[in-house]
């Protein structure tokens, strides 16, 4: 733990304590925000509730499906675009503007296409995540030094050997970065969808709690969500650091 880490921990604990005091002594409206202790209580209640666990499980399934699809399709499209230079150049400005477009507007279209089940949610998560994977895969492939290509030629490697033993490990760190975004965006896409229209999942549970004025459950679920996503992101960052530390600057 560095000095910065300690300071950060102290600040977070301090902020929570401040919020706790502000809530308990009435500085903040009880209708709006509840004390952190009650939030954690709500989180505990949520985790121990069967219904909520089912919701959480459902969301996780949807997120995982979206993630896997976006990784596979994203990597494949990235590889294809890397080869198809003309198509890639035509597509570049559109890719760069992709995340400016509110993709959730396609949600009703997906409901028509897939029905009122999990697939519109997965589709939104997929749409959100796949482009991040494509862009980062393209970036990684573009960064492969020309010296590697020529070295492979001099070593007289077959195309498969070149792809498997040079392209893959060389571009892997960038693909990993794309994967990190895919995780975050899959969560965002799926849960946002659950918010708007859905009968199940964490997003829906939060919306339901909000509409039922059940603040404790609502905040509890939000806390759970942040902890879950935060943990996944931290785990991915640590894993990434361990994987690529020895490459130091790739």
């Amino acid at each position, binding site marked *: 733990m560095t000095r*910065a880490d300690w300071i*950060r921990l102290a600040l*977070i604990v301090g902020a929570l304590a401040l919020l706790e005091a502000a809530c308990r002594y009435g500085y903040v409206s009880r209708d*709006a*925000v509840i004390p952190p202790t009650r939030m954690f209580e709500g989180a505990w209640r949520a985790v121990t509730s069967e219904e909520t666990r089912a919701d959480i499980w459902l969301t996780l399934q949807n997120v995982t499906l979206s993630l896997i699809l976006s990784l596979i399709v994203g990597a494949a499209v990235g590889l294809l675009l890397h080869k198809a230079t*003309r*198509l*890639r*150049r*035509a*597509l*570049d*400005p*559109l*890719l*760069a*503007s*992709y*995340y*400016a*477009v*509110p993709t*959730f*507007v396609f*949600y*009703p*279209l997906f409901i*028509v*296409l897939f029905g009122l089940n999990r697939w519109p949610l997965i589709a939104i998560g997929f749409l959100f995540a796949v482009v991040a994977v494509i*862009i*980062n895969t*393209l*970036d990684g492939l*573009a960064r492969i030094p020309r010296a590697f290509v020529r070295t492979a030629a001099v070593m007289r490697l077959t195309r498969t050997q070149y792809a498997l033993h040079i392209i893959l490990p060389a571009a892997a760190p*960038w693909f990993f*970065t794309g994967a*990190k*975004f895919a995780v*975050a965006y899959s*969560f*965002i896409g799926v*849960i*946002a969808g659950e*918010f*708007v*229209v859905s009968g199940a999942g964490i*997003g829906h549970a*939060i919306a339901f709690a*909000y509409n039922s004025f059940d*603040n404790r459950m609502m905040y509890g*679920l*939000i806390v759970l*969500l*942040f902890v879950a*996503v*935060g943990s996944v*992101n*931290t785990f991915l960052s640590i894993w990434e*650091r361990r994987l*690529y530390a020895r490459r130091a600057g790739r």
Partner: protein
Amino acid sequence: MPAAQDADPLVTAERVERRATPATLDTALLLVGLVALWQVGTLALGREALPSPIATVSKLAGIMADEDFPRHAWETARAFLTALVISLVAGLFIGLALGAHRLSGEVAEPVLTALYSTPKITLYPVILLLFGLGISAKIAFGVIHGIIPVILFTMNAVRNIRVVYLRSARAMRLTLAQTAFTIIVPAALPEIVSGFRVGFALTLLGTLIGEMFASQRGIGYMLVKAMETGDTGTVTALALLLVVLATCASAALLALDRRLRRHALTS
């Protein structure tokens, strides 16, 4: 290890694109192809599910000509521009401060990165509770989405200013103000503008989503009402409007970004 925002898809896409020469004609062709694909989709899924491109354009023209529309558009614009100004200005200053003061930056960065990658949509109920229904909630939605990338990018920009520039400034005996305005800002500007680009896009997103939940007015509200009543014609028309606006604005900012980066040494 590069910071998270270095890999932000919007910025990475530009970096990939910048290496290639612009192929505007090809892109135009691609757009035509996409519209053709759309038409095929209409034929496949039916006019009820997916209105045709022509029907959508005419519907949009009808919506925009309607007397209610300017009110909605202005509502959205008002909320968005306010949120944008807050995101960019506050984000810039906070980012500059965190970039200049090493320790603060180090303390804040993981928190900001974590917030950046978590679904902020889950904070919407909290925002609604805090701000109530209305324009302030929408602005708040927009700000919580847009301010974080601006802070992160600006912070990174200041931190990454090449030390040799600062040493040159000392060697030239510049004052703090001169150093700031003639060296730090120009050196950090390209990356700050990238942050603005991302901030712009996300603020728009946040404002729109805010309107879907927190308002009886605005384009987001029109959208959600159309979605609820199954009015696919309106949904598609508004979606087209948003896509075109967002893409044009993004392209304009991208052109600005590229012009600025032309003078930058590193890519």
